[in-house]
C-alpha cells in the first residue's frame, strides 16, 4: 500500500539529481571546461592508474609462470637460473623490439625541430577512447599528434590532464584530420572504425598518383607526418573530387609503441 508513493518519491529524487547533473553539465559547457579543469587539476591524486600500475599487471603473468615452475622443478637453484634467463630474454626481446620500432620511426619522419615522447596506452574508457601516459607534466596540449612505430599518424590528443591524456584515434568515429598530398591537394581524413575515409576539400591539381597524405603546417600541425599511404589503394575522381577508402589494419594494444610529437 505504501510502496507506490515511496517509489514515486524515489523517482522524483532521481529526477532532481538528473537535473542537478544537467546543471553542472551546462555550467561546464558554458565555462568551456574551466569548471571541470579546475577540479581535476586540484584532485589529480585521485587518478589511480599509472604506468607503474600497468607494469604491475604486465608482470603478473610472469609471476604465475614462476609459481608453476616452482611446483614442477625440484631443483631451486636451476629454476631460479631459468627464470632469470627468461627474464633477461624478455628484456632483450623488448629492447630489440624498441630499437626496431625506433629505427622505423626515424626512417619515416622528419626529425628536425621536433621531440618524440614515447607514451603508453593506460586504459580504454567507456566511450572507447584511449587514455595514455603523459599530460601537462610533459607540456602536452590539445591536438598534439600521435604516431605509431612506423611514423604514421594514429591519433591526436583531445584532453590533457596532469599525468595522462585522452586521445582520439583512427578507430574512433569522431576522428577527423586534414591532410595534404604531394601536389598540394587538401583532404579530410575521417574514420568509420574499420576504414579511413579520404575526401578532397581543395584541389590544386587532379592527379590520382598519390603516395601519401600527410599532415602539414598549413593546418597548424608541427610538420609533415604521413596519415595514410595511398600508393596501393584505389583512388577515385568524380566531379573534381578525389576520394578513397582505406581499410584500417592497425590494432591498438597494451604493448603499442606510440609517440607524441612536440616542437622543440
Amino acid at each position, binding site marked *: 500500500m505504501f510502496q507506490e508513493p515511496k*517509489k514515486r*518519491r*524515489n*523517482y522524483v*529524487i*532521481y*529526477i532532481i*539529481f*538528473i537535473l*542537478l*547533473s*544537467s*546543471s*553542472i*553539465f*551546462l*555550467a*561546464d*559547457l558554458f565555462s568551456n*571546461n574551466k*569548471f*571541470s579543469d579546475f*577540479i*581535476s587539476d586540484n*584532485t*589529480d591524486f*585521485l*587518478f*589511480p*592508474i599509472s604506468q607503474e600500475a*600497468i607494469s604491475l*599487471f604486465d608482470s603478473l603473468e610472469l609471476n604465475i609462470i614462476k609459481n608453476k615452475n616452482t611446483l614442477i622443478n625440484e631443483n631451486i637453484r636451476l629454476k631460479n637460473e631459468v627464470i632469470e634467463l627468461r627474464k633477461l630474454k624478455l628484456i632483450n626481446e623488448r629492447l630489440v623490439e624498441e630499437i626496431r620500432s625506433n629505427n622505423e620511426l626515424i626512417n619515416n619522419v622528419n626529425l628536425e625541430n621536433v621531440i618524440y615522447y614515447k607514451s603508453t*596506452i593506460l*586504459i*580504454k*574508457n*567507456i*566511450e*572507447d*577512447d*584511449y*587514455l595514455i601516459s603523459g599530460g601537462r607534466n610533459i607540456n602536452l596540449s590539445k591536438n598534439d599528434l600521435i604516431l605509431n612505430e612506423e611514423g604514421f599518424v594514429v591519433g591526436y590528443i*583531445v*584532453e590533457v*590532464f596532469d599525468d*595522462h591524456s*585522452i586521445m582520439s584515434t583512427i578507430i*574512433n*568515429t*569522431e576522428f577527423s584530420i586534414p591532410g595534404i598530398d604531394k601536389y598540394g591537394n587538401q583532404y579530410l581524413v575521417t574514420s*568509420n*572504425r*574499420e576504414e579511413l575515409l579520404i575526401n578532397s576539400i581543395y584541389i590544386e591539381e587532379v592527379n590520382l598518383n598519390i603516395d601519401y597524405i600527410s599532415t602539414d603546417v598549413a593546418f597548424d600541425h608541427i610538420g609533415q607526418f604521413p596519415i595514410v599511404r595511398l600508393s596501393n589503394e584505389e583512388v577515385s575522381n568524380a566531379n573534381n573530387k578525389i576520394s578513397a577508402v582505406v581499410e584500417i589494419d592497425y590494432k*591498438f*594494444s*597494451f604493448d603499442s609503441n606510440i609517440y607524441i610529437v612536440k616542437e622543440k
Partner: protein
Amino acid sequence: MKTLRSISYIFLFIALLVLELFIGIFSEFSDLEILPFLILLFYISINKFSNAYIPAFFISGIYYDLFYTSNYLGFTSVKFLSIGIVINFINNKLDDNFFSEFLVFFLAVAIYKFEFIIYSYSFIQLTIVFLISVINYFLFKLINITLKRYVFKKSI
C-alpha cells in the same frame, strides 16, 4: 550511520568503475567487454532501487568525467542516474520472466554504450552490443543467484 553507508556505496561504485577499466587491459581492448559496473547499476536498479544509491550514482559519474573522459562534467552522472530510473521503471512494467529481463538488460547496455551506437551505427556494432549484453547478462545471473541467500536454504 546513513552517511557512512552512503560513503561506502560511493567507494564501492568507484572501485568497480576502476575495476571495469582495468579489465579492459586484460582483454587487450577487445570489443567484447565485461562490464562489472553496469552489472552493479542493473542489479541495484531492479533489486535494490532506493534513494540511498543516488549519491553513489552521482559522484561516480562526476569522478569518471573528471579523470577518464573528455565529456563535460555531469554528463556521465546523468547517464548513470537515467539508467537507474529507466531500468527500474521499465522492469516494473514488464512481466517477471527471463526474456523481458534480458530485454531490459539489453536496453541498459544500449544506454550505457549509446555513444558507441550513435557514432558508429551499423549492423556489426549492434551485434557487438548484443554480444556484450549476452556475456554480461550471464554474469549478472550468476551473481544474482549467488547473492540470493535463500538458494542455500532451499538446498538444505
